[in-house]
């Protein structure tokens, strides 16, 4: 086994779970997340000789994953698979239980997150899950800090406008008409 295979194999064994989680947050789909991770790791394998700083391998892999996800979105066939209708209506419980609201809120937000485009979604995941700064996100996405800021504020605004203000109101709004 050569050095490349040994080092990359060890890296995958150690970090695949965390990377798969990240892929899942980017795609919102289990199958796509696995495809994304596998394809990205193959790209890492192919560009192994160009990676000089092996300590930054995980950050490099996440960058490859984010960019691969964005390029997949540009393909029309993929867009159809990934596309989710923004209306995500669901029947809700009439009884108001606070803990349940918390869970419902998250489910609702997760559904709304799937309606965002890949770029604002990637920005929000990198910002609020990976806890990266705007400059770091700009480096990952290969764009300017200004673009990151605008994508972030646009993504949040879209979530805000689709998310009713109060959980109680939300329950009433989300009920199916009888």
């Amino acid at each position: 086994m050569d050095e490349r295979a040994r080092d990359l194999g060890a890296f995958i064994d150690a970090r695949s779970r965390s990377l798969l989680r990240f892929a899942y947050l980017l795609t919102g789909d289990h199958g796509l997340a696995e495809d994304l991770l596998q394809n990205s790791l193959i790209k890492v394998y192919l560009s192994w000789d160009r990676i000089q700083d092996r300590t930054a391998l995980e950050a490099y892999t996440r960058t490859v994953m984010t960019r691969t996800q964005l390029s997949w979105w540009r393909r029309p066939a993929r867009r159809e698979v990934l596309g989710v209708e923004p209306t995500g209506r669901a029947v809700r419980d009439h009884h108001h239980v606070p803990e349940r609201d918390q869970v419902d809120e998250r489910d609702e937000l997760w559904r709304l997150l799937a309606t965002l485009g890949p770029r604002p979604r990637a920005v929000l995941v990198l910002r609020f899950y990976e806890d990266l700064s705007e400059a770091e996100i700009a480096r990952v996405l290969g764009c300017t800090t200004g673009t990151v800021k605008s994508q972030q504020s646009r993504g949040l605004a879209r979530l805000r406008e689709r998310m009713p203000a109060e959980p109680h109101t939300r329950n009433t709004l989300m009920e199916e008409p009888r």
Partner: protein
Amino acid sequence: MSDELTRLLTETLQSRETDVGPMPELASRVLQKGRSARNRRLALGWGTTGVVAAAAVVAVALMGPVMQHSPNPGPANSRRPRPSRLPPRSPRPQTRIPS
């Protein structure tokens, strides 16, 4: 509302961590596919080099005889005058040698 939303967003993303399970045999699959993709790339690279080299050899082989026949009279309908149709040279003016 924005702080509330970002807090909820962070919680939402973190709560989804448990959604994914392990991917068995991922390392071996990646290494196997990566190796074959690399070999394909190398083969493609050598193939391209081979085609370019062969084209260069053929071009040199064809250009050799062509270069030997020059100057070549142009074809009948070309604007290049054929050697036979060149205007006759004007006779040299005879210079009288003073005696």
